[in-house]
């Protein structure tokens, strides 16, 4: 291997405050060869993004200070460079793209102008020439009609196209190194696959070196040459992709790999499922089910009555129009029929905008139905809205995507739970305090959390509190809407394991909405695939995953990046599997 393009040695970064320095990055040493793709993996807070910000000298806060180490770009130490020369490095040498293209693109500037900005600045081209160059780059990153899309604004594009625009803007400055900070985390799997493919193509065409930050080992396995695993500000392991995934050395890497949802289900990696090992949970079964023989209903021969029946449901939202134009509407859910038996675990999957969340809200009577029926325990929401809603309030509960914002920040966790218990009135007032404790035990939070507020909790702890709040209803049905999407993978795995235990021990019916197919595969017995407000496929999870009948489902499954580098996300495309050639020259904007 020739001299590395970028070489980081013993980099230290601290957060400086009156109390002293708190280390955020400690002794980071990494190398990046020309044309190489390095995956930077780790949980939120592990310092991946900070590392990349440090490389380009864009500290998120003036309180963060580099205290030691070298950053060599083409053998030049840029760590101590003055602001002006650092600025010249950004863009021209090191380009960056970000997780959230929607907020990083200027909303009031045309896409084309944003690309032209960098081109004109670095290549000193005139307006017309810069525009030509921008159109070429737009075509290169997959804009279908560059001349027209040149004058569009960011909000007129989908998330995937916005990320392409970000990439085009970065490429406009013609960098040698691209830092991609979680570039696909906010995107649907199929779009993620397209963007990753684009990055790999650009690498092959331009000899671009890429640092890809992600929390998804699958993404890394599919794209990178080498992987660096970060935790708590340190690089715990770095190595060639296949070797590292096959034989991880650090314990943390092993747990990260084990948490990856595409790993085969080994009954929760040895976690204890048996109810009898959970004394609190065991006493709770009786308390929750309320009847002396909770198992009686599912065991009844013949067809049990469905808990939820949805019949040709349509939910429409107004979409523009008004006083002088005909009102238009948009069907978020467009003719869905579904029935859910007591005790079932049903996963609803689909891309964003497919209507999953609307279906969930309609199921709980939280959104007006346009037509069709939703029945809960045989009561129709359309025919007897008030009575059915009353019943839903007492027997169904929801767990939300954003655990922080779903909890009242002014209430302690104990107050939040006690409020539900008081309103529901199923537990005598004198028992509420005890019951709060039991609920916390149930979600495996220490009882001391009762006096804490959401602000002082981590994401995973908040979500456990959110689940405890749902359980406080003593529900028969829990609807969990993307409830793990905002969590780190290891935390995701814990929450999924918690759901599995709860479902098993409490006779819960669970509707689990997720865009992450692998998680649904772990957790749910039945899966419903939604697309454009309709159900395109449903059936037993294993059957659907093993033999999808619909092309849409198959595409969705194929787009999930496997943690096994052998199962390529991009199919057999020789260009994309080329290993980096040392000294690959940049080829400008030639396709």
């Amino acid at each position, binding site marked *: 291997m020739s001299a590395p393009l970028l070489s980081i040695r013993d980099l230290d970064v601290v957060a400086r405050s009156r109390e002293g320095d708190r280390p955020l990055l400690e002794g980071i040493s990494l190398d990046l060869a020309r044309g190489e793709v390095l995956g930077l993996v780790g949980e939120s807070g592990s310092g991946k993004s900070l590392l990349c910000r440090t490389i*380009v000298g*864009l500290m998120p806060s003036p309180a963060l200070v580099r205290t030691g180490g070298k950053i060599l770009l083409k053998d030049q130490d840029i760590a101590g460079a003055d602001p002006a020369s650092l*600025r*010249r*490095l*950004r*863009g*021209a040498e090191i*380009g*960056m793209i*970000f997780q*959230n293209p929607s*907020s*990083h*693109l*200027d*909303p*009031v*500037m045309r896409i084309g102008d944003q690309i032209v*900005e*960098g081109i004109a*600045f*670095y290549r000193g081209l005139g307006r017309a020439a810069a525009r030509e160059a921008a159109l070429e780059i737009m075509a290169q990153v997959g804009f279908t009609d560059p001349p027209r899309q040149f004058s569009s*604004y960011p*909000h007129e594009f989908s998330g995937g196209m916005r990320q392409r625009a*970000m990439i085009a*803007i*970065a490429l*406009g*400055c013609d960098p040698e190194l691209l830092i991609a900070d979680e570039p696909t985390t906010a995107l649907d799997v199929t779009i993620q696959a397209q963007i990753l493919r684009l990055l790999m193509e650009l690498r092959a065409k331009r000899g671009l070196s890429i640092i890809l930050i992600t929390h998804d080992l699958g993404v890394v396995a599919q794209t990178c040459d080498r992987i660096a695993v970060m935790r708590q500000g340190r690089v715990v392991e770095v190595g060639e992709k296949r070797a590292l995934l096959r034989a991880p050395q650090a314990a943390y890497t092993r747990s990260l790999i084990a948490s990856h949802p595409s790993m085969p289900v080994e009954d929760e990696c040895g976690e204890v499922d048996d109810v009898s090992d959970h004394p609190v949970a065991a006493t709770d079964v009786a308390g929750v089910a309320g009847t002396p023989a909770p198992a009686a209903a599912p065991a009844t021969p013949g067809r049990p009555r469905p808990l939820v029946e949805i019949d040709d449901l349509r939910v429409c939202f107004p979409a*523009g129009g008004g*006083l*002088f134009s005909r009102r238009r509407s948009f069907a978020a859910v467009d003719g869905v029929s579904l029935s859910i038996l007591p005790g079932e675990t049903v996963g609803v999957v689909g891309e964003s905008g497919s209507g999953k969340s609307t279906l969930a809200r309609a199921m709980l009577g939280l959104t007006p139905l346009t037509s069709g029926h939703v029945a809960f325990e045989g009561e129709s929401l359309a025919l007897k809205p008030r009575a059915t809603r009353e019943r839903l309030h007492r027997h169904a509960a929801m767990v939300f995507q954003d655990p922080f914002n779903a909890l009242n920040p002014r209430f302690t966790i104990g107050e939040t739970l006690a409020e539900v218990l008081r309103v529901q009135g199923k537990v005598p007032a004198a028992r509420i305090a005890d019951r709060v404790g039991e609920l916390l035990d149930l979600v495996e939070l220490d009882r001391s959390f009762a006096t804490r507020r959401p602000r002082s909790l981590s994401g995973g702890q908040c979500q456990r509190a959110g689940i405890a709040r749902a359980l406080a209803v003593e529900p028969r049905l829990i609807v969990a809407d993307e409830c793990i999407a905002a969590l780190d993978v290891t935390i995701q795995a814990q929450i999924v394991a918690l759901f599995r235990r709860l479902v098993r021990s409490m006779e819960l019916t669970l509707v689990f909405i997720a865009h992450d197919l692998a998680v649904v595969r772990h957790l749910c017995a039945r899966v419903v695939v939604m697309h454009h407000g309709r159900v395109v496929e449903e059936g037993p999870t294993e059957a659907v995953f093993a033999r999808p009948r619909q092309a849409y489902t198959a595409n969705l499954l194929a787009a999930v990046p496997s943690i096994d580098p052998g199962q390529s996300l991009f199919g057999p495309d020789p260009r994309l599997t080329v290993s980096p050639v040392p000294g690959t020259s940049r080829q400008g904007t030639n396709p």
Partner: protein
Amino acid sequence: MHRYRFILTRPLQFLPVVLGVSLITFVLVRLIPGDPARVLLGARATPTAIANIRAQYGLDEPIWLQYLYFLRNLAHGEMGTSIVFRIDVLDLIVTRIEPTVALVLASVLLSVLIAVPLAALAARNRGRPVDHLVRIVSTFGIGFPPFWLGLMLILFLAVQVPLFPVSGYGTSVGEKLAHLVLPALTVALSLSTVLLRSLRAAMIEGLKSDVATAARARGMPEGVVFWRHVLPNAVAPTINLLAVNVGWLIGSTVVVESVFALPGMGQLLVRAIFSRDYMVVQAIAMVFACATVLVNLAADIATVAVDPRVKL
């Protein structure tokens, strides 16, 4: 272009606004103690003379009937005759409209010229002495009432250092502009503080935003980041704030025109109120109301032009 279609439908808002404003001013003006006929004829007028005047202007009719007459005339584009000036109200207003419009435009222009650079200076030096100075000065600006500011400006910039005329309006364009400087500055000193605060806050947000980070990450100099990316994004909320403040702006022209003896509508309004010149008060109130609606329309157009995401 359909984003701008609201320009065609918006004038329909005028109808309810004009009706509402006319009803309220019509009734309120007549609730003020005093009789225009008596004001007009003086203290020694005979009862018959007063009765004649009252009959001539329809003031002896019941109030609801007067209002219906008023609406009928309004539909024909007539606002009645001024009791004091004895000429058509519309003709009267037309002669007075120019100084007021000029004052409002000059005030807004000056406010923007004061607010934008100071806000930029403060935001880009956040937490430094410059920032604190700008904020302290702007707090004073909010605290001082316009009439007092106006008097101080006259004292310092017209009397002690005779840079600008003390009062009046003049006839040539140059004279008019010179006469407008101090009144406009009076209004602008108050208005710009409001804009300044909003702009500064929006700019500070903008400097921390992802858009700015992304621009820095592609090596744009801080000046480009600020003027090309931060400022345009900070303008939209300020336009709306400006529109909200137009009511206040029009109110303050009444005071400022009186202080500087500008022969505009505000000054006319004050005289009309004192002389119970009902027709003039009504007409000016309605002109002001329509102006407010128009300014809000202009603000909406500006917002749509500035921010491509906005749909109205």
